[in-house]
Protein backbone atom coordinates (compact mmCIF):
# COMPACT_ATOMS: atom_id res chain seq x y z
CA UNK A 1 0.00 0.00 0.00
CA UNK A 2 1.59 3.20 -1.14
CA UNK A 3 -0.27 5.78 0.92
CA UNK A 4 -1.60 5.51 4.46
CA UNK A 5 -3.62 8.00 6.49
CA UNK A 6 -3.54 7.16 10.18
CA UNK A 7 -6.58 8.87 11.69
CA UNK A 8 -6.78 6.69 14.78
CA UNK A 9 -7.48 8.61 17.98
CA UNK A 10 -8.46 11.74 16.08
CA UNK A 11 -11.87 13.24 16.63
CA UNK A 12 -14.24 14.71 14.11
CA UNK A 13 -13.54 16.30 11.60
CA UNK A 14 -9.80 15.45 11.52
CA UNK A 15 -10.11 12.02 9.83
CA UNK A 16 -12.07 13.58 6.97
CA UNK A 17 -9.68 16.55 6.64
CA UNK A 18 -6.64 14.25 6.51
CA UNK A 19 -8.31 11.94 3.98
CA UNK A 20 -9.42 14.79 1.73
CA UNK A 21 -5.95 16.35 1.88
CA UNK A 22 -4.43 13.08 0.76
CA UNK A 23 -7.03 12.68 -1.99
CA UNK A 24 -6.16 16.16 -3.24
CA UNK A 25 -2.44 15.36 -3.10
CA UNK A 26 -2.66 12.11 -5.05
CA UNK A 27 -5.51 12.79 -7.48
CA UNK A 28 -5.87 9.06 -8.07
CA UNK A 29 -4.52 5.73 -6.90
CA UNK A 30 -5.05 3.90 -3.62
CA UNK A 31 -5.19 5.18 -0.05
CA UNK A 32 -5.33 3.16 3.13
CA UNK A 33 -7.16 4.94 5.98
CA UNK A 34 -7.03 3.75 9.59
CA UNK A 35 -9.82 4.93 11.89
CA UNK A 36 -11.00 3.81 15.30
CA UNK A 37 -14.68 4.76 15.49
CA UNK A 38 -17.73 3.89 13.43
CA UNK A 39 -18.46 7.59 13.00
CA UNK A 40 -15.04 8.14 11.40
CA UNK A 41 -15.53 5.10 9.18
CA UNK A 42 -18.84 6.51 7.93
CA UNK A 43 -17.55 10.07 7.54
CA UNK A 44 -14.41 9.07 5.65
CA UNK A 45 -16.43 6.78 3.37
CA UNK A 46 -18.96 9.53 2.68
CA UNK A 47 -16.28 12.13 1.95
CA UNK A 48 -14.27 9.82 -0.32
CA UNK A 49 -17.33 8.73 -2.28
CA UNK A 50 -18.33 12.35 -2.79
CA UNK A 51 -14.92 12.96 -4.41
CA UNK A 52 -15.45 10.07 -6.82
CA UNK A 53 -13.31 7.54 -4.94
CA UNK A 54 -14.47 3.98 -4.47
CA UNK A 55 -14.49 2.23 -1.09
CA UNK A 56 -12.79 -0.98 -2.15
CA UNK A 57 -12.54 -2.62 1.22
CA UNK A 58 -13.45 -2.05 4.87
CA UNK A 59 -12.22 -4.49 7.47
CA UNK A 60 -11.95 -4.43 11.26
CA UNK A 61 -8.44 -3.80 12.50
CA UNK A 62 -7.56 -3.60 16.19
CA UNK A 63 -10.37 -1.66 17.86
CA UNK A 64 -11.19 0.17 14.60
CA UNK A 65 -11.25 -0.21 10.86
CA UNK A 66 -8.97 -0.19 7.83
CA UNK A 67 -10.49 1.36 4.72
CA UNK A 68 -9.07 1.05 1.23
CA UNK A 69 -10.01 3.92 -1.07
CA UNK A 70 -9.34 3.63 -4.77
CA UNK A 71 -9.63 5.87 -7.80
CA UNK A 72 -8.33 4.87 -11.22
Amino acid at each position, binding site marked *: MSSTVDARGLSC*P*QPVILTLNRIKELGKGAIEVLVDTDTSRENVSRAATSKGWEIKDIRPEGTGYRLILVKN
Partner: protein
Amino acid sequence: MRVRNILATRWGIIIVGSIIGILASLLQKMGNPGNMGICVACFERDIAGTLGLHRAAVVQYMRPEIIGFVLGALAAALIFKEFRPRSGSAPIVRFILGVFAMIGALVFLGCPWRALLRLAGGDLNAILGLAGLGFGIWIGTLFLKGGYNLGRAETTYPSVGLLLPLVMLGFLALALIYPQVSGEPASGVLFYSTKGPGAMHAPLIVSLIVGLVVGVLAQQSRFCTMGAIRDLILFRQTHLFGGIVALLVVAGITNLALGQFHPGFTGQPVAHNLHIWNFAGMALAGLAFALAGGCPGRQLFLAGEGDGDAAIFVLGMIVGAAFAHNFGLASSPSGLGPHGMAAVFTGLVVCLFIGFTMRKKLA
Protein backbone atom coordinates in the same frame (compact mmCIF):
# COMPACT_ATOMS: atom_id res chain seq x y z
CA MET B 1 -19.94 -4.75 12.03
CA ARG B 2 -23.39 -4.17 10.67
CA VAL B 3 -23.70 -3.94 6.93
CA ARG B 4 -25.53 -0.66 7.10
CA ASN B 5 -26.52 1.79 9.78
CA ILE B 6 -29.88 3.09 8.55
CA LEU B 7 -29.91 6.09 10.87
CA ALA B 8 -26.58 7.33 9.50
CA THR B 9 -28.00 7.71 5.99
CA ARG B 10 -29.39 10.94 4.55
CA TRP B 11 -32.97 9.96 5.32
CA GLY B 12 -31.93 8.54 8.67
CA ILE B 13 -30.64 11.85 9.94
CA ILE B 14 -33.67 13.69 8.55
CA ILE B 15 -35.97 11.29 10.40
CA VAL B 16 -33.98 11.70 13.63
CA GLY B 17 -34.09 15.52 13.34
CA SER B 18 -37.85 15.31 12.77
CA ILE B 19 -38.40 13.05 15.78
CA ILE B 20 -36.36 15.39 17.99
CA GLY B 21 -38.46 18.31 16.72
CA ILE B 22 -41.73 16.58 17.60
CA LEU B 23 -40.51 15.35 21.00
CA ALA B 24 -39.17 18.79 21.94
CA SER B 25 -42.48 20.48 21.15
CA LEU B 26 -44.34 17.80 23.10
CA LEU B 27 -42.04 18.23 26.11
CA GLN B 28 -42.90 21.93 26.11
CA LYS B 29 -46.60 21.02 25.93
CA MET B 30 -46.11 18.71 28.90
CA GLY B 31 -44.48 21.33 31.08
CA ASN B 32 -41.00 22.30 29.92
CA PRO B 33 -40.35 26.07 29.58
CA GLY B 34 -41.33 28.07 26.49
CA ASN B 35 -39.35 27.25 23.34
CA MET B 36 -37.22 25.07 25.64
CA GLY B 37 -38.61 21.61 25.06
CA ILE B 38 -34.98 20.58 24.88
CA CYS B 39 -31.99 22.83 25.56
CA VAL B 40 -28.73 21.14 26.43
CA ALA B 41 -27.07 24.31 27.74
CA CYS B 42 -30.11 25.43 29.77
CA PHE B 43 -30.66 21.96 31.19
CA GLU B 44 -27.03 21.51 32.23
CA ARG B 45 -27.29 24.96 33.82
CA ASP B 46 -30.37 23.76 35.74
CA ILE B 47 -28.40 20.71 36.89
CA ALA B 48 -25.61 23.00 38.12
CA GLY B 49 -28.37 24.86 39.99
CA THR B 50 -30.00 21.87 41.65
CA LEU B 51 -26.54 20.75 42.80
CA GLY B 52 -25.98 24.17 44.34
CA LEU B 53 -22.97 25.03 42.16
CA HIS B 54 -24.79 28.30 41.52
CA ARG B 55 -27.71 29.64 43.51
CA ALA B 56 -29.83 31.35 40.87
CA ALA B 57 -33.18 30.40 42.39
CA VAL B 58 -35.14 30.30 39.12
CA VAL B 59 -32.95 27.75 37.31
CA GLN B 60 -32.56 24.72 39.57
CA TYR B 61 -33.79 21.30 38.47
CA MET B 62 -32.23 17.89 37.84
CA ARG B 63 -33.17 17.65 34.16
CA PRO B 64 -33.78 13.98 33.31
CA GLU B 65 -33.39 14.70 29.58
CA ILE B 66 -29.63 15.21 30.00
CA ILE B 67 -29.31 12.00 32.03
CA GLY B 68 -31.30 10.16 29.36
CA PHE B 69 -29.15 11.52 26.53
CA VAL B 70 -25.98 10.06 28.03
CA LEU B 71 -27.50 6.76 29.12
CA GLY B 72 -29.39 6.32 25.84
CA ALA B 73 -26.20 6.90 23.87
CA LEU B 74 -24.39 4.41 26.14
CA ALA B 75 -27.10 1.81 25.56
CA ALA B 76 -26.99 2.28 21.78
CA ALA B 77 -23.19 2.12 21.76
CA LEU B 78 -23.21 -1.11 23.76
CA ILE B 79 -25.99 -2.75 21.73
CA PHE B 80 -24.36 -1.91 18.39
CA LYS B 81 -20.83 -2.59 19.62
CA GLU B 82 -19.69 1.00 19.17
CA PHE B 83 -18.58 1.63 22.75
CA ARG B 84 -14.98 2.87 22.44
CA PRO B 85 -13.43 4.02 25.73
CA ARG B 86 -10.93 6.73 24.83
CA SER B 87 -9.39 9.85 26.35
CA GLY B 88 -6.29 12.00 26.45
CA SER B 89 -6.85 14.48 23.63
CA ALA B 90 -6.08 17.76 25.43
CA PRO B 91 -8.64 17.37 28.25
CA ILE B 92 -7.87 20.72 29.90
CA VAL B 93 -8.51 22.52 26.61
CA ARG B 94 -11.84 20.75 26.25
CA PHE B 95 -12.78 21.75 29.79
CA ILE B 96 -12.02 25.42 29.14
CA LEU B 97 -13.88 25.31 25.80
CA GLY B 98 -16.86 23.82 27.64
CA VAL B 99 -16.79 26.63 30.20
CA PHE B 100 -16.81 29.39 27.57
CA ALA B 101 -19.25 27.57 25.30
CA MET B 102 -21.71 27.63 28.19
CA ILE B 103 -20.99 31.27 29.02
CA GLY B 104 -21.63 32.26 25.38
CA ALA B 105 -24.79 30.16 25.22
CA LEU B 106 -26.14 31.77 28.39
CA VAL B 107 -25.57 35.28 27.01
CA PHE B 108 -27.85 34.28 24.11
CA LEU B 109 -30.02 32.05 26.34
CA GLY B 110 -29.82 28.69 24.64
CA CYS B 111 -27.71 26.09 22.93
CA PRO B 112 -27.97 25.51 19.15
CA TRP B 113 -30.84 23.08 19.73
CA ARG B 114 -32.78 25.74 21.57
CA ALA B 115 -31.85 28.37 18.97
CA LEU B 116 -33.64 26.17 16.42
CA LEU B 117 -36.54 25.52 18.80
CA ARG B 118 -36.86 29.24 19.59
CA LEU B 119 -37.14 29.99 15.87
CA ALA B 120 -39.59 27.10 15.50
CA GLY B 121 -41.69 28.74 18.21
CA GLY B 122 -41.66 32.08 16.39
CA ASP B 123 -38.91 33.81 18.40
CA LEU B 124 -37.21 35.85 15.67
CA ASN B 125 -34.33 36.80 18.00
CA ALA B 126 -33.09 33.28 17.35
CA ILE B 127 -32.15 34.38 13.83
CA LEU B 128 -29.44 36.57 15.35
CA GLY B 129 -28.32 33.69 17.54
CA LEU B 130 -28.14 31.28 14.62
CA ALA B 131 -26.27 33.84 12.52
CA GLY B 132 -23.79 34.26 15.38
CA LEU B 133 -23.49 30.48 15.68
CA GLY B 134 -22.67 30.25 11.98
CA PHE B 135 -20.13 33.06 12.29
CA GLY B 136 -18.37 31.41 15.24
CA ILE B 137 -18.26 28.07 13.45
CA TRP B 138 -16.90 29.78 10.32
CA ILE B 139 -14.01 31.17 12.40
CA GLY B 140 -13.51 27.64 13.71
CA THR B 141 -13.28 26.24 10.17
CA LEU B 142 -10.51 28.76 9.38
CA PHE B 143 -8.53 27.32 12.28
CA LEU B 144 -9.27 23.77 11.12
CA LYS B 145 -8.01 24.64 7.64
CA GLY B 146 -4.88 26.09 9.23
CA GLY B 147 -4.08 22.78 10.92
CA TYR B 148 -5.73 23.29 14.30
CA ASN B 149 -6.29 20.04 16.16
CA LEU B 150 -6.24 18.80 19.74
CA GLY B 151 -4.17 15.71 19.11
CA ARG B 152 -4.96 12.05 19.42
CA ALA B 153 -6.95 10.29 22.09
CA GLU B 154 -5.81 6.90 23.34
CA THR B 155 -7.83 3.78 23.86
CA THR B 156 -8.25 3.25 27.57
CA TYR B 157 -10.07 1.20 30.23
CA PRO B 158 -13.80 0.63 29.65
CA SER B 159 -14.43 2.08 33.10
CA VAL B 160 -13.04 5.45 31.92
CA GLY B 161 -15.76 5.63 29.31
CA LEU B 162 -18.36 4.60 31.88
CA LEU B 163 -17.59 7.38 34.35
CA LEU B 164 -19.84 10.12 32.94
CA PRO B 165 -22.74 7.67 32.46
CA LEU B 166 -22.20 6.63 36.09
CA VAL B 167 -22.23 10.28 37.18
CA MET B 168 -25.56 10.63 35.35
CA LEU B 169 -26.90 7.54 37.15
CA GLY B 170 -25.78 9.18 40.39
CA PHE B 171 -27.68 12.35 39.45
CA LEU B 172 -30.78 10.27 38.73
CA ALA B 173 -30.42 8.52 42.07
CA LEU B 174 -30.20 11.90 43.83
CA ALA B 175 -33.35 13.09 42.04
CA LEU B 176 -35.19 9.96 43.18
CA ILE B 177 -33.87 10.03 46.75
CA TYR B 178 -34.58 13.77 47.12
CA PRO B 179 -37.64 14.38 44.92
CA GLN B 180 -39.13 17.81 44.47
CA VAL B 181 -41.52 18.84 47.24
CA SER B 182 -44.18 21.20 45.94
CA GLY B 183 -43.49 24.80 47.00
CA GLU B 184 -40.20 23.94 48.76
CA PRO B 185 -36.92 25.46 47.51
CA ALA B 186 -34.88 22.42 48.50
CA SER B 187 -35.18 18.69 49.10
CA GLY B 188 -32.29 17.02 50.90
CA VAL B 189 -29.09 18.10 49.19
CA LEU B 190 -30.83 19.33 46.04
CA PHE B 191 -32.20 22.79 45.31
CA TYR B 192 -35.45 23.20 43.40
CA SER B 193 -36.92 26.27 41.73
CA THR B 194 -40.36 27.26 42.96
CA LYS B 195 -40.81 29.73 40.08
CA GLY B 196 -39.16 30.57 36.76
CA PRO B 197 -37.95 28.17 34.06
CA GLY B 198 -36.47 25.79 36.64
CA ALA B 199 -39.96 25.21 38.05
CA MET B 200 -41.35 24.29 34.64
CA HIS B 201 -40.85 20.70 33.62
CA ALA B 202 -42.56 17.70 32.14
CA PRO B 203 -43.06 14.70 34.48
CA LEU B 204 -39.70 13.09 35.38
CA ILE B 205 -40.50 9.75 33.77
CA VAL B 206 -41.59 11.38 30.50
CA SER B 207 -38.45 13.53 30.34
CA LEU B 208 -36.26 10.54 31.11
CA ILE B 209 -37.84 8.33 28.45
CA VAL B 210 -37.65 11.06 25.80
CA GLY B 211 -34.01 11.60 26.79
CA LEU B 212 -33.24 7.90 26.40
CA VAL B 213 -34.96 7.70 23.01
CA VAL B 214 -33.16 10.79 21.71
CA GLY B 215 -29.88 9.45 23.13
CA VAL B 216 -30.21 6.21 21.17
CA LEU B 217 -31.28 7.92 17.93
CA ALA B 218 -28.69 10.68 18.09
CA GLN B 219 -25.81 8.33 18.93
CA GLN B 220 -26.67 6.16 15.94
CA SER B 221 -27.32 9.03 13.51
CA ARG B 222 -24.37 11.21 14.75
CA PHE B 223 -26.78 14.15 14.95
CA CYS B 224 -24.78 17.35 15.55
CA THR B 225 -25.92 20.94 15.08
CA MET B 226 -22.40 22.38 15.00
CA GLY B 227 -21.19 19.64 12.67
CA ALA B 228 -24.11 20.40 10.35
CA ILE B 229 -22.96 23.98 9.82
CA ARG B 230 -19.23 23.15 9.94
CA ASP B 231 -19.46 20.43 7.29
CA LEU B 232 -21.48 22.73 5.06
CA ILE B 233 -18.81 25.45 5.27
CA LEU B 234 -15.73 23.22 5.35
CA PHE B 235 -16.65 20.39 2.96
CA ARG B 236 -19.81 21.69 1.20
CA GLN B 237 -21.48 18.61 2.68
CA THR B 238 -25.19 18.74 3.48
CA HIS B 239 -25.55 15.39 5.25
CA LEU B 240 -25.85 16.60 8.87
CA PHE B 241 -27.50 19.85 7.75
CA GLY B 242 -30.55 17.83 6.68
CA GLY B 243 -31.01 16.87 10.32
CA ILE B 244 -31.16 20.40 11.70
CA VAL B 245 -33.42 21.64 8.91
CA ALA B 246 -35.77 18.73 9.67
CA LEU B 247 -35.70 19.60 13.39
CA LEU B 248 -36.55 23.24 12.66
CA VAL B 249 -39.34 22.54 10.17
CA VAL B 250 -40.99 19.70 12.08
CA ALA B 251 -40.79 21.49 15.44
CA GLY B 252 -42.35 24.54 13.74
CA ILE B 253 -45.22 22.48 12.33
CA THR B 254 -45.76 20.71 15.65
CA ASN B 255 -45.78 24.07 17.46
CA LEU B 256 -48.37 25.41 15.01
CA ALA B 257 -50.52 22.35 15.63
CA LEU B 258 -50.19 22.70 19.41
CA GLY B 259 -50.77 26.47 19.45
CA GLN B 260 -47.18 27.10 20.55
CA PHE B 261 -46.15 29.30 17.61
CA HIS B 262 -46.04 33.04 18.40
CA PRO B 263 -43.99 35.02 15.88
CA GLY B 264 -42.21 38.22 16.93
CA PHE B 265 -39.15 39.77 18.56
CA THR B 266 -40.71 40.88 21.84
CA GLY B 267 -42.36 39.05 24.70
CA GLN B 268 -40.67 35.77 23.79
CA PRO B 269 -40.19 33.23 26.60
CA VAL B 270 -36.78 33.15 28.29
CA ALA B 271 -35.26 35.50 25.70
CA HIS B 272 -34.03 39.07 25.29
CA ASN B 273 -33.89 41.12 22.11
CA LEU B 274 -30.41 42.63 22.28
CA HIS B 275 -29.48 41.67 18.73
CA ILE B 276 -25.75 42.29 18.96
CA TRP B 277 -25.42 40.18 22.09
CA ASN B 278 -27.60 37.38 20.80
CA PHE B 279 -25.19 37.27 17.87
CA ALA B 280 -21.99 37.66 19.92
CA GLY B 281 -22.96 35.15 22.60
CA MET B 282 -23.64 32.46 20.06
CA ALA B 283 -20.55 33.40 18.04
CA LEU B 284 -18.48 32.61 21.13
CA ALA B 285 -20.39 29.38 21.72
CA GLY B 286 -20.12 28.37 18.06
CA LEU B 287 -16.38 28.93 18.01
CA ALA B 288 -15.94 26.92 21.21
CA PHE B 289 -18.09 24.06 19.83
CA ALA B 290 -16.15 24.06 16.56
CA LEU B 291 -12.79 23.96 18.36
CA ALA B 292 -14.06 21.13 20.59
CA GLY B 293 -15.56 19.17 17.67
CA GLY B 294 -19.21 19.00 18.65
CA CYS B 295 -22.32 20.83 19.81
CA PRO B 296 -23.33 20.32 23.46
CA GLY B 297 -25.78 17.57 22.53
CA ARG B 298 -23.19 15.71 20.48
CA GLN B 299 -20.72 15.96 23.37
CA LEU B 300 -23.24 14.17 25.61
CA PHE B 301 -23.73 11.40 23.05
CA LEU B 302 -19.98 11.04 22.52
CA ALA B 303 -19.49 10.86 26.28
CA GLY B 304 -22.11 8.08 26.33
CA GLU B 305 -20.18 6.05 23.75
CA GLY B 306 -16.99 6.23 25.80
CA ASP B 307 -15.30 9.50 24.80
CA GLY B 308 -13.72 10.75 28.01
CA ASP B 309 -12.67 14.03 26.38
CA ALA B 310 -16.28 14.82 25.46
CA ALA B 311 -17.16 14.03 29.09
CA ILE B 312 -14.66 16.67 30.21
CA PHE B 313 -16.34 19.19 27.87
CA VAL B 314 -19.69 18.38 29.50
CA LEU B 315 -18.26 18.95 32.96
CA GLY B 316 -16.73 22.19 31.68
CA MET B 317 -20.18 23.33 30.57
CA ILE B 318 -21.71 22.54 33.96
CA VAL B 319 -18.93 24.46 35.73
CA GLY B 320 -19.27 27.25 33.15
CA ALA B 321 -22.94 27.57 34.08
CA ALA B 322 -21.94 27.99 37.71
CA PHE B 323 -19.52 30.79 36.76
CA ALA B 324 -22.14 32.34 34.49
CA HIS B 325 -24.65 32.73 37.31
CA ASN B 326 -22.28 33.34 40.21
CA PHE B 327 -20.43 36.11 38.35
CA GLY B 328 -23.43 37.75 36.69
CA LEU B 329 -22.46 36.70 33.15
CA ALA B 330 -25.74 35.04 32.17
CA SER B 331 -28.50 37.02 30.52
CA SER B 332 -32.13 37.03 31.61
CA PRO B 333 -35.31 38.15 29.87
CA SER B 334 -34.58 41.64 31.23
CA GLY B 335 -31.23 41.81 29.43
CA LEU B 336 -27.53 41.10 29.83
CA GLY B 337 -25.91 40.14 33.09
CA PRO B 338 -23.71 42.92 34.56
CA HIS B 339 -20.52 41.22 33.32
CA GLY B 340 -21.87 39.45 30.26
CA MET B 341 -20.01 41.64 27.77
CA ALA B 342 -16.68 41.21 29.53
CA ALA B 343 -17.22 37.46 29.60
CA VAL B 344 -17.90 37.28 25.85
CA PHE B 345 -14.72 39.24 25.07
CA THR B 346 -12.68 37.13 27.47
CA GLY B 347 -14.08 33.96 25.95
CA LEU B 348 -13.30 35.06 22.40
CA VAL B 349 -9.71 35.91 23.38
CA VAL B 350 -9.30 32.51 25.04
CA CYS B 351 -10.75 30.68 22.02
CA LEU B 352 -8.51 32.61 19.62
CA PHE B 353 -5.50 31.79 21.80
CA ILE B 354 -6.43 28.10 21.65
CA GLY B 355 -7.09 28.23 17.91
CA PHE B 356 -3.88 30.03 17.01
CA THR B 357 -1.50 28.08 19.23
CA MET B 358 -2.70 24.49 18.93
CA ARG B 359 -1.76 23.32 15.50
CA LYS B 360 0.49 20.50 14.56
CA LYS B 361 1.09 18.57 11.38
CA LEU B 362 -0.45 15.14 11.68
CA ALA B 363 1.21 12.31 9.78
